[in-house]
């Protein structure tokens, strides 16, 4: 399995994209939590998470999104999740996360779902 990596890029003015690689578990989830916290500290509340290269997620990873979703939506933003593999989506689905989170087939669709500024 690929090692965990996290990269942040800015997509024009509409949102920032967090791209995840490898595995998101109890060991790596704090790194994602720190990255989202820093985006919020910089006043960025429109976030797309690109799961294209993420092979594995456990409940520790899911919990990170729960930590921030209320605060982000109170600010008029959102965390939109995109491009999950079938295996990663199945973990979200098993716990009913699609009820609360917007999950898109592609990163572009997630980006386009944010209003352009």
């Amino acid at each position: 399995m690929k090692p965990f990596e996290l990269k942040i890029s800015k997509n024009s003015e509409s949102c920032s994209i967090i791209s995840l690689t490898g595995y998101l578990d109890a060991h790596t989830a704090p790194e994602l939590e720190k990255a989202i916290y820093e985006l919020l500290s910089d006043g960025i509340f429109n976030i797309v998470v690109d799961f294209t290269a993420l092979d594995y997620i456990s409940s520790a990873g899911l919990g990170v999104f729960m930590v921030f979703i209320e605060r982000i939506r109170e600010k008029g933003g959102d965390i939109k999740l995109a491009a999950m593999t079938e295996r990663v989506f199945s973990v979200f689905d098993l716990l009913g996360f699609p009820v609360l989170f917007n999950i898109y087939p592609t990163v572009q669709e997630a980006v386009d779902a944010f209003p352009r500024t």
Partner: protein
Amino acid sequence: MSSSPRDTSLTIKATTDQLARIRDYVFGQCVHAGISAPACHNLVLAVDEACSNIIQHAYHNNPAQTFNISIRATKNSVTIEITDSSPPFDPASVPLPDMSTYFEERRHHGLGILLMTKILDSIEYVPASSEGATNKLILTFKVS
């Protein structure tokens, strides 16, 4: 692929950086037993959740502590026994969250045991019977 049962075990340091090693071990044993890849992935997740709880909540990520995982896998069933020497804690005693309430209250912990119950056929906990003995967490999965 072999369908004959075999018992193997792994001793693990109680730190979260060991979770990847645990997952590789569980996946390898389940694949070797001839279990389908989707079922192997589910078992990996269930064991990850069980071990994450032990590492973080029982041993507080203490590298001086270790625990043991043993697996008996056949093409029809997998039994995973996790033994540790931490203060006894029965994960099956924890009330499972109702997800509607969980989302309404924006909670962010306590999903691991729920995932385990959704994947596994049984979760049995045997606390240490005396000082120096080990707790046993026995996870059973039947291949459908």
